[in-house]
């Protein structure tokens, strides 16, 4: 690092690359979660265009449980904080 804490070009590349990977990871997680909870919660009959009460609460719980699973797996992989914290 240069003095006064200004990051060097290489450090900047590093920070930049890490940020990009974290973003890509989050997007991937969000997409998988969205598709999985759609399959688990939304009825395939498509009788109407709105989500009903049952579907909505199923979605909320599905997201919460999915989140817990990422936490459990993150801990198992040896970091107290999963990649996305």
């Amino acid at each position, binding site marked *: 690092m240069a003095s006064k804490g200004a990051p060097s070009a290489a450090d900047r590349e590093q920070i930049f690359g890490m*940020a990009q990977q974290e973003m890509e990871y989050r997007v991937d997680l969000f997409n998988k979660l*969205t598709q999985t909870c*759609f399959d688990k919660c939304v009825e395939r009959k498509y009788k109407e265009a709105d989500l009903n009460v049952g*579907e909505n609460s199923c*979605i909320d719980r599905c997201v919460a449980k999915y*989140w817990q699973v990422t936490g459990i797996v993150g801990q198992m992989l040896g970091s107290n904080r999963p990649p996305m914290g």
Partner: protein
Amino acid sequence: MEAADFEALPEEDKHRMSTMIDHLQVRDSLKMYNSLVERCFCHCVESFRRKTLDKQEETCVKRCAEKYLKHSMRVSMRFAELNQGAPTSD
């Protein structure tokens, strides 16, 4: 990634970072669009005896797409709350 890391970056890098984020968001929404189409097509279109959608298939696709979008927005809100460590109740 700590907030501090970003602060240490010069202006041009902050700009580059926000360009990257914009880029990923566009890519993300295009991907979402593609998986919505795939899913609703798979769920709604079963017959291939004609090459145009019949009325029933079209209605199914529209409802499916609308539901998927609403679902996706709801997931997005919940996801943001959890990312910010919001307390959860059963």
